[in-house]
């Protein structure tokens, strides 16, 4: 029985796809920040990517079982960090999300909580596979997710908070939730969501505005609706072949809001058209398919759960982000994995994929 895996088993295919999309991301960030005060973001993103890849390699050598073992501790620390960020966090654009670590480095705990929650869900559900989930189990799983979620909503950061949900859903799904339970939950959430929608009290005014403007973008041309409209114009005006690198008028003219982070897909589609956009979707498809494949090949249940957790979070972010860019979903502020600029997002995604590598490398361990 081999305790350690070799680089022969490293997922070179996945790494290639990740590197490919990262290069595209850096190029598009450079284009989108060309004539702005953010013109150094491309280089910074390269830095984040290098650090992320390094962490990815490092974590792939740590047995993921150890990570599952320390998950409760990490969970505890995460909750403390989320409480801390509410107390001492730096307030940026109406949200208190970052802890200033000094030296220009800002730490966003909520991104890391995603990883911790994936591990926690894996740990929670793997012991319960094979027997029917009780309502108590479901309640506990919900509690595990909803506590950090509530803290993040308090920042307030609706987008990130929503990304905690997919890990729970996939956990429940794979953990063996019954159709009947699922139906009851769905009904309950529908009623709850409807109630919240009606009262509108749960949402901050700007969150409410974002959601309502999604329904009627023209109502507030300079607000969230303006962003959606500009995003759709960017994507649509790109046409089939796009306007060419650095030539997107929406992107370069600063009509497209934050074209290097949340709306980077719109910037890319404007400059590289339908063909380019389909290329990105294809890469995502290949990455996700590869991940699911890895999940199947995982040597044990925690491995499968972790990989599927990563799949769920990534898929959710892709859908919500691209859906928003295309005007199919409201503006929620969720970054596009591996494309959007941002250290925390890059590090989370690469770390998560590092763990997937780790799981793959240990698939023949038994």
């Amino acid at each position: 029985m081999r305790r350690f895996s070799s680089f022969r088993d490293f997922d070179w295919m996945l790494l290639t796809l990740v590197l490919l999309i990262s290069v595209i991301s850096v190029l598009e960030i450079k284009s989108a920040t060309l004539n702005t005060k953010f013109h150094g973001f491309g280089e910074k993103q390269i830095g984040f990517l290098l650090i992320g890849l390094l962490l990815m390699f490092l974590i792939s050598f740590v047995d993921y079982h150890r990570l599952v073992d320390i998950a409760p501790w990490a969970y505890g620390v995460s909750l403390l960090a989320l409480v801390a960020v509410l107390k001492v966090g730096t307030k940026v654009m109406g949200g208190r999300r970052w802890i200033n670590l000094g030296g220009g480095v800002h730490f966003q705990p909520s991104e890391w909580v995603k990883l911790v929650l994936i591990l926690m869900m894996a740990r929670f559900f793997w012991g319960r596979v094979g027997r029917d989930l009780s309502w108590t189990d479901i309640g506990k799983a919900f509690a595990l997710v909803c506590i950090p979620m509530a803290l993040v909503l308090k920042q307030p950061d609706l987008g990130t908070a929503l990304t905690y949900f997919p890990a729970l859903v996939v956990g429940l799904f794979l953990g063996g939730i019954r159709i009947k339970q699922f139906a009851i939950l769905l009904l309950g959430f529908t009623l709850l969501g409807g109630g919240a929608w009606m009262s509108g009290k749960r949402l901050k005014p700007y969150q409410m505005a974002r959601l309502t403007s999604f329904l009627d973008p023209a109502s507030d041309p300079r607000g969230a609706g303006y962003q959606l409209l500009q995003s759709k114009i960017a994507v649509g005006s790109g046409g089939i072949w796009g306007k060419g690198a650095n030539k997107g008028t929406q992107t370069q003219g600063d009509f497209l809001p934050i074209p290097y982070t949340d709306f980077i897909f719109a910037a890319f589609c404007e400059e590289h058209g339908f063909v380019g956009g389909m290329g990105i979707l294809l890469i995502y498809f290949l990455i996700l398919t590869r991940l699911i494949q890895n999940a199947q090949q995982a040597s044990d249940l925690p491995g499968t759960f972790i990989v599927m957790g990563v799949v769920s979070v990534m898929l959710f972010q892709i859908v919500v982000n691209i859906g928003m860019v295309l005007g199919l979903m409201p503006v929620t502020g969720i970054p596009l994995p591996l494309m959007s600029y941002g250290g925390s997002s890059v590090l989370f995604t690469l770390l998560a994929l590092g763990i997937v590598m780790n799981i793959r490398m240990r698939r023949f361990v038994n």
Partner: protein
Amino acid sequence: MIANPDRYNAREEKVSPGKLHATQYIVVLVLVVLATGMWRLQVLGADSYRQLAEANRIRKDPVRAPRGKIFDREGRILVDNYPSVSCYLLREQAKDVQADVPMIARGLNLPVEQVETTLRRYQITPKYESILLKQDITQDEQAFIEAHRNELPELETRDDQRRLYPRDGFAAHLIGYVGEVSEEDLNSSKYDFYEPGDVVGKSGVEETYDSLLRGVDGSRDVVVDSHGREVGQLGQQLAVPGKDLRLTIDLDLQRVAEQAMEGKNGALVAMDPHTGEILAMVSRPAFDPNQFAVRLTRSYWSQLVNDPDHPLMNKAIQAQLAPGSTFKIIMSLAGLEENVAQDMRVMCNGGGTFYGRFFACDHHHGMVDIDHAIPWSCDTYYYTLAEKLGIDTIAKYGTEVGLGQKTGIDLPDEATGTMPSTAWKLRTQHEKWYAGETISVGIGQGSVQVTPLQLARALSGIASGGVLKRPHVVFPDELPPDMGSAIAASYPGSGDRTIPLTTPNWETITDAMAQTMLPGGYDTGAAVRLEGIDFAGKTGTAQLVNHSIGGNNLLTGAARANAWFVGMAPRRNPDIVVAVLCEHGGWGATAAAPLAAQVINAFVTKQRRREGNLIQVSAPKPAAVPAISQPSSSPQPSGLPQPPSQPKPPTAPADISMIEPGPRVAGPESNQH
């Protein structure tokens, strides 16, 4: 905590492959949905989104066409343009314009209400259109805009062309001024093709010939980012500069006229009777059109509007006042044409009683005939003539020479004046005409009202044998063909017309008017005779308070009589006719006539210099004007005061014909009767 792998190996269960497959399908499904969304936007909607993207980044910036310059008849510049900086507001740039208004108003030194009014006016226009906030901003205001780029990104400066008018109100009423088209104007059909912010001529030539002067504004298609910063230019539509305009005004003459009228209250108009060309036009008090062109302060505006002397009024065409004795020219014409005056002799004993009321004359003129009545300006004679003619006959001739109707000059808002008649009174006051009213009209009092221009044109027609011309300040043949007729149509009036006059009749009048200006003892105009110039004229002193018609009491201040003078040179087919009005000026002979004399003198001097035959008239040499030998031609009963017999100047027709060659100088001997 040390991981124990065996703990994980203890259970061999696996997640059912079906669930993982299901996930795979979900992934495919979701990506297909996204791909469909992209297809919809990028393939199906590409064209419309491309248009939206274009509209996003292209802004139309207006390029103002430089307004045409205005020159005098000899091509000397009257109105020029100069470059200046204007401040515009780009509403798209502002988060909340209303909130910024106080700050903008402070920085640009504008009243807050004015900025708000401007914003309201533009509410209906598309947001990407820029609003002109203030023209010709100062350096301090430019500095303010620069310093507040971040707080007030909506402010922008652009180079513009501004109007530069002559200083001190020189020819201000004639030229007019330009200003931003007003809200009321925009609602009228005349301004159908104008947009808010357009600069239009608001009075004078600037208004009449606005369509010619204004040119066609161009635009630049500017590529901008979402902050409105210009990042490039896609194309431009060049502005078509306005056409330059040559006026019939003679700058030299205008200058003399302006100087003559300085400090006066009234108007002076000089016109060429052959063509109707206005050579000079002055109205006083004046205003400074430059103040209108840039920043008209509230205080300056209210000062203009509340001034009892009406500085904004072009009195040459808008002052309608009783013409006083100058009306006797028209009376004489009526009397002669009706064959009443030729043989009429009137005994003047300082007035006469008509219809039971005594009407005064300012002198005891004794026995007066038509040849003396004009130079003496004998009221008694004209009372009698008026009584004989009746109001409707007087009105017939008054109307024929253009009174009571617009002359049709190509300047806005000309007044019509009043030529009373029985029909007129019935129409306007629904009352019957009383014969007694006719007597006052006989000396240009009562309800007869004329403008200085009407008077000038009437005399022009009479002295030219009945050929009346439409007065104009722009040469019609220099206008585009359709515009010339359009101008004539938009400024209707009596226009060009010829009335049949019997030659001896109008010659009698003009001779008598020449006599008026001679030191022959008629004390009405002799003080202003011009040596060596065949200068003919008629004074008028129109009382404003009617209690002493014909009396000597001129009163003072606002009740002081209006002084009139209308004169010409030479007496037959004159080259120039000048009408002068001095409101509350007193005697026409002393207040108005000298002003006209200055202008006529300047005109003749210039004319001679141009023709190279200016001769130095030696000072002691008497006037080279042939005098009519009236004492013999119209016998006067002895006992009447004779004109003081001064040594008659040697008549020197040779001199005149040398100075003034041409058929227009008719020998005076030919028209004695």
